[in-house]
């Protein structure tokens, strides 16, 4: 983008499909379009049907072409979209014809959006929301991304920033005009602590509430655990619907943590199969157990599996729950007669071989997932992305610094913390730290020397 190159890329995923789309952006995209169609530019922003030709005057495809004249395009440059029939060979031949032209090169990852950002067509926040939308796996993720695009969180951050800015104005005015300048109102300074406290409370609330959205974005971690040979891997495969995990009668088969992303009623779940827990002298198995323990501790939901046969014989004791969200599952129920076992302490008694059992398990898991999402959800409807959430943590940290500085009475230190906070906001909002501080001081206070 730093050069004036025109960039080109296939916008649709590789492989055969009904149609594939090629996108061009940059000053040469109009030349490419005219060369490909051997005709004048079509009317901007209107789908037109054109034959495409290669350099040897061979027809490539009968295509729909779209032209967006700058600056009214996604990137702010002249843009062209070519809707081709979905053969990789057609796309390849169009690409080659364009790349043979001077000043045209393949786009790097994200470069169209990068152009749009640099041209001011999108702000950083929208870019991030766009990326999340593209990456969304589930409907919950899509609604989170859309909620970000509406700019509500952007407005909230901007509002906070301006409130901090006003505090900074009062503090800077006090610093620049000293203790003896009667016009700088002392009342403004005495309110600083109250104003900072209320900002801290608000930011802390929203910062905490971001956990839900993080769950939506990253997916809940559901970990299968239990003693060796409890049937965890069998259950895992039954969930996935294929033989992903190796299943064997010999205990300690699973070592690595296996993970699949599942769409559970629109909510992303990361289901993990882990090594069975037991005392072992095998170094490799021990490493597997350590990994399993780490996953268990960090899980949102633990699925404790207990072999029904071993439960009936009293060999396996009842596992204790880490949290009320965990599920206790008695497995291999097909190997015992249901009437003979006491299973009231378990949430479910199932056999992975039995499809209705699996449906019940899915349902139970789904209910737990919903519960977690509702419990962490507060009234707050602001959804922040990861970068913003991290920035809020930094801001909260600086806010503690503000409080300390206020206590020790050093206004210069307080001003410095407020500057850090402003930088954090400017950074997260994608703005340069343009300081209007003095302007604001002079519209607020009457200052004489």
């Amino acid at each position: 983008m730093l050069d004036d190159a025109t960039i080109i890329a296939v916008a649709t995923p590789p492989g055969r499909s009904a149609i594939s789309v090629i996108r061009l952006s940059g000053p040469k995209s109009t030349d490419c379009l005219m060369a490909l169609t051997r005709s004048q530019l079509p009317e901007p922003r209107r789908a037109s049907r054109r034959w495409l030709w290669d350099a040897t005057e061979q027809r490539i495809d009968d295509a729909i072409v779209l032209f967006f004249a700058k600056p009214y395009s996604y990137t702010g440059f002249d843009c062209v979209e070519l809707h081709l029939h979905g053969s990789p060979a057609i796309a390849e031949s169009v690409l080659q014809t364009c790349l043979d032209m001077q000043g045209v090169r393949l786009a790097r990852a994200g470069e169209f959006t990068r152009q749009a950002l640099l041209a001011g067509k999108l702000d950083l926040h929208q870019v991030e929301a766009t990326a999340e939308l593209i990456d969304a796996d589930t409907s919950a993720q899509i609604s989170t991304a859309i909620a970000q695009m509406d700019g509500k969180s952007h407005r909230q951050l901007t509002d906070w920033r301006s409130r901090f800015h006003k505090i900074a104005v009062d503090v800077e005015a006090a610093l620049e005009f000293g203790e003896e300048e009667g016009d700088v109102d002392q009342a403004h300074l005495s309110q600083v602590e109250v104003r900072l406290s209320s900002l801290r409370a608000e930011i802390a609330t929203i910062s905490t509430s971001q956990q839900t959205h993080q769950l939506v974005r990253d997916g809940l971690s559901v970990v299968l655990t239990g003693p060796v040979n409890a049937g965890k891997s069998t259950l895992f495969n039954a969930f996935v619907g294929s033989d992903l995990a190796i299943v064997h009668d010999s205990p300690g088969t699973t070592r690595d943590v296996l993970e699949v992303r599942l769409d559970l009623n629109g909510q992303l779940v990361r289901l993990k199969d882990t090594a069975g827990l037991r005392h072992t002298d095998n170094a490799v198995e021990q490493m597997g157990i350590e990994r399993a323990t780490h996953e268990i501790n960090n899980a949102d939901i633990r699925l404790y599996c207990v072999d029904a046969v071993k439960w009936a014989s009293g060999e396996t004791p009842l596992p204790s729950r880490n949290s009320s969200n965990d599920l206790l599952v008695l497995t291999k129920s097909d190997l015992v007669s249901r009437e003979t076992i006491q299973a009231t302490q378990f949430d479910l008694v199932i056999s992975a071989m039995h499809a209705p059992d699996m449906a019940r398990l899915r349902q139970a898991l789904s209910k737990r997932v919903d519960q977690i999402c509702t419990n962490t959800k507060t009234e707050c409807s602001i959804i922040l992305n990861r970068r913003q959430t991290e920035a809020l943590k930094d801001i909260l940290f600086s806010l503690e610094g503000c409080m300390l500085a206020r206590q020790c009475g050093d206004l210069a230190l307080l001003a410095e913390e407020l500057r850090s906070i402003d930088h954090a906001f400017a950074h997260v909002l994608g703005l340069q730290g343009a300081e209007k501080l003095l302007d604001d001081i002079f519209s607020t206070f009457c200052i004489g020397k």
Partner: protein
Amino acid sequence: MTITRHYDVIIIGGGHAGCEAASASARLGVSTLLLTQKLQDIGTLSCNPAIGGLARGHLVREVDALGGIMGRCIDKAGIHFRMLNRSRGPAVQSPRAQADRELYQKAALELLSHQENLDIVADKVMAFERHNDRWTIQTKSQSFNANAVVLTTGTFLNGVIHFGETSRSAGRIGDEASTGLARDLANLSLSMARLKTGTPPRIRKSSIDYSQLAIQRPDEAPVPFSYMTDRIAQPQVPCHLTYTNADTHQLIADNLHRSAMYSGNITGTPTRYCPSIEDKIDRFADRERHQIFLEPEGYHSDLVYPNGISNSLPEDIQVQFVRTVAGLENAEIIQPGYAVEYDHVDPRNLDAKLELHAYPCLFLAGQVNGTTGYEEAAAQGIVAGFNAALRSKGQAAFILSRTDALIGVLIDDLITQGVSEPYRMFTSRAEFRLILRADNADLRLTERASALGAVSDARLRKMECRRHHIESMNSSLVEFKIPLRTADLQTDTDRVELDFEKCGLKFDQSSYEYLHTEDLYKHHTRRLEREIKAIRAEESRVLPTDMDPFTISGLSNEIREKLRASKPSTLAEASRISGMTPSALARLYHYTKSIDEVA
């Protein structure tokens, strides 16, 4: 035909910028001439009789650390010293002192007349031009030429004075406006703009009734400005405060239309930092009163400078409104206040040496660049003086960056942003306020000035000695495991002093204060030092002087125009031009890299 005398460097103008420039140039060992209209102009405090103040005290300390004269002058002339912002934190503490005008002028003249390599000539410049690779200057009676020239013409360019409904062309009262010089400067075709400043009436001291006014006492132990001054010897006097009231405001409001400022006669932009009383009453109508600080003009002077009521009302109204103020009921106005309009050169014509882009070896410093304040003028004077001398010696430039000094912030702001009103220094303009303090200017700058040969051995030794004391105190604290900071400065000082006594160590108050401050800010200092590193990296990305922004692809014409106007010399300067976009910067960065690759 008179004989033309040659100097390496000639300074035109004997105000604060001129004095510092002359001294700085001469200290570098080049033959220097200071040309001033009148000898009495040297060191004149033309506005209020005070030096320093918030941020400005920092500037004086920096000028002093570089070997300048302002700090030493005020230490000999100060009659009311105060350290400001004592309760706000050490980073923003700044010294201020009221001056005896006569003593200040005497001190300045004495320092300059004893300066080696420096001649002073009082004469009026009639013509000024570039001749081959030298600048020639024609005065009323002589002619000079120089390798490099520093112009410090203050507010004299096309100066117009406004008293109420009348106005006349002039500089300060009693001075002739420098019109010949103005003509030749105009011939240089630099971009100019118009600014406005004002001054209050002067009141006869014996006509003021002090009995009912609030007293402001000076500090009991006055803290000197200069690192070379051990203590302030002259006696200290109190100042007084009074306030305007509803009657004052009514009177001024009723006669606003008769003010030069409000009748539309003035087109120059006024400063918001030092508003006229008309402005205060018009813009902040809800204020019940405004403070007036009665500044004595000296031990023996019968004049008082009432700071806070600069105005351009007709004289009769000035007398009336002044007499509504408590203590001033019988005030006798010796000279009425007035407004001054003047031209200044757009400082974006300058580079970081304060040399004009278009005219090599011609430097500008002080109010002519659109600043306000003695201290801002002195700060520019010293940088221009050094660089004029270095230029004539053919040596590398002396540049202070925003990361080095408030002077660096001042100059960088001027040359990258230009000015839209008279520019005044504020500590909030500095990104690195916690580091660029008034208490460490010597530790930051004296060594650098010494490398130029610009400071005396005594000054360098003094700084090294201080540094040594601080370091040894610090190692004692570490060795004897004495905690540096646990409470406020006073408590900590008492505690540590006692601990030092117990261990049989010598306690050094000033070193301890310094360490206490450093410790208070250390958390931020680490972060700021990382930022400084990043900025220095950008500063090392040099943009070629012959860069034509119109040949760089992908820049908007608006940005190209801005680049052409301010001619940034580094990527860092470019980044601070207003309206600069991240993408334009990215392109410039790319451009500097492409040059590196070719080279």
